């Protein structure tokens, strides 16, 4: 059974058809990518699967359960972690608080613990902090744990987001353009992180990316989205040589 299965997902914004008949299957431990020109609807697909929008039609199964209509936080706590294209960090919170926050759904001490500072709460918060520090270590930003995120350089902020997404212990990770705006050096480090996450934690990864080079390096299978429709699907080589893809990216003239 695939980990994530999307069947015939269609979504309208008013009269505009943003996504049409989208299908996706991700097996545990697989890396797949979604590419496409600006405005093709890539982020919309992420937002549909993660529950920020509810699709007009179609079925989304996570671990064999239908997740259409669930709140985003419910979907997230069922094992779907994500990062955002334009860094959605909490500007007044420290790095450590960010990562601990993603373990919210795992806390069981309830309001009594929160109000009266019970022993159970202290235990759970301590465990949560230890886990968070572990992840910060993995991302190589443990020394920044007490810093407010707005003081950090861009690359470090990206790592915070990554650590935060991993802290909820997802089974599948959605990365929305994880390398956008990075220097070549930062980019190499990010690739390394994605590989580590994939291999050591055995996570399935679904990734939106603009730079074909990265996609080619990382992914087993790629989908190309244009105007809300998948026009090509296949291995990196197949996609690279697909005339429809070249047309979408470069225009008709270039196909010769």
């Amino acid at each position, binding site marked *: 059974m695939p980990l994530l299965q999307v069947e015939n997902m269609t979504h309208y914004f008013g009269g505009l058809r943003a996504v049409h008949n989208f299908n996706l299957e991700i097996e545990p431990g697989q890396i797949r990518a979604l590419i496409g020109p600006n405005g093709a609807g890539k982020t919309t697909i992420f937002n549909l699967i993660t529950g920020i929008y509810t699709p007009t039609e179609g079925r989304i199964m996570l671990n064999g359960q239908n997740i259409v209509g669930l709140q985003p*936080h419910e979907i997230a706590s069922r094992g779907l*972690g994500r990062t*955002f294209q334009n860094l959605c960090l909490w*500007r007044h919170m420290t790095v450590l*608080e960010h990562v601990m926050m*993603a373990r919210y759904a795992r806390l069981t001490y309830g309001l009594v613990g929160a109000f009266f500072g019970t022993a159970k709460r202290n235990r759970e918060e301590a465990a949560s902090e230890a886990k968070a520090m572990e992840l910060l270590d993995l991302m190589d930003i443990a*020394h*920044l744990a007490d810093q407010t995120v707005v003081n950090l350089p861009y690359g470090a902020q990206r790592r915070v987001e990554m650590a935060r997404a991993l*802290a909820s212990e997802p089974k599948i990770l959605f990365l929305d353009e994880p390398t956008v705006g990075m220097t070549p050096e930062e980019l190499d480090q990010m690739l390394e992180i994605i590989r580590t996450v994939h291999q050591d934690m055995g996570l399935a990864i679904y990734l939106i990316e603009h730079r074909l080079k990265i996609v080619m390096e990382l992914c087993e299978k790629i989908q190309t989205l244009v105007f809300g429709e998948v026009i090509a699907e296949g291995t990196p080589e197949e996609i690279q040589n697909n005339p429809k893809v070249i047309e979408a990216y470069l225009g008709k003239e270039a196909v010769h």
Partner: protein
Amino acid sequence: MVEKNGASPGNPPKRFPRLRSFLGDIPLLAWLVGGLISVLIEQQIGDSLATFLGLPKIPVLFGCMLAMKEPLLLPGALAYVMVIYGLTIVLIGKITARPFNQLATKMMQWPIAIAVALHLVVLYAIMHVWSDFSLYRELTLKLTLIAIMLTLSLNIINGYMGEFSCSHPGFMALGAYGASAVMVLFFVNDRLFGDALLPEFLGPFFFPLALILGGIAAALGALLIAIPSFKTRGDYLAIISLAFMFIVKSLFENLQFLGGARGIKGQPDLANLPTVFIWMVICVWVINNFVRSTMGKALNAVRDDEMAAEAMTVDTRRTKMVAFLFAAFWAGVAGGLFAHTIRFINPNTFGVQRLAELLAMVYFGGLNSVYGSIVGAVSLNLLGEMLRPLALFKWIIIPLMLILIMIYRPTGLVAFKEFDVRKLIQPKRKPEKEV
């Protein structure tokens, strides 16, 4: 935890470095003991010192009122305050800094509750001796403690959650009327409710229950606002909560069995200083616990980026509802205490003026911070009393100060600072010279 390097680029340079290094090694307990001794000295020699300085009587609120009524007495009043409070506290703090630092080092190994209790006892003793001097001092002090509760609970909504709620006077009214109605019904022979139903000696035992009942009434009122307004973010809450405040006010104006526009008077005199102090401490403790837990910090996450909070498994709707009801509950409890302190309430007490006062305290003191709420409530409340002789001009000076604060420190005096009791009572060393 990671060591914080002292001069990180984010921290602004500290002002008054010499004063800081002079006073920096005095632990909190030494300050408190200094304060206690200074109020004891005032009790003993205050009268003769005042006569000696040519003052008609002991300055009630740090000499401010006296100086304003008769400006010629300003030097005398200033000297009095400096000698009794300033010099004594600094001197004793400085002398006892070393032993109290050793004690503080030991205290860090005890259970935190004992160390905190010790500090609170000394703090209460200061308040008790200070307010023993006159009823006016006691009333001002009690109202200040209640203001801390109100400001802190409003800070949960307007600071930690980042919404703008105007309904706090409404919650206060629900709590005040709830608690008053219960207490007057059961324990007072009253025109409104008839004879007392229970013997008077049970009053002190019922009083906490009545306060909690008032708090629950306020929380139920909050639920009415929360359901429609937390479906979306933005200005809705401000408008709905403002409407709620007016609805509550006119509701009590028209409920004849609760006294209508004349209100309820003659509440039993149960909100004495220790009671108010204990409730204030519980309130600060519980709220501080809440905002420092991951569940409480979820409020900050919701404020800073709600979509990200959702994606990180935070149940944002529940978080907002809980915080809103929680804040309303404490406003209700504070309202009940307020009613029993003044011992007279009417709907007009809980109008726009009260709202302005509360908002001023929150924004003056600092958003998202327990320290800030305490600073804001104490300073604006005392200032309001001190400037009383200026009558109408008071309402020019205080708003002017607010404007200045908003220009120079837009988030308030002590914003975004965590209230860590351990850090507060730990032994202090001289701050190292900054390189």
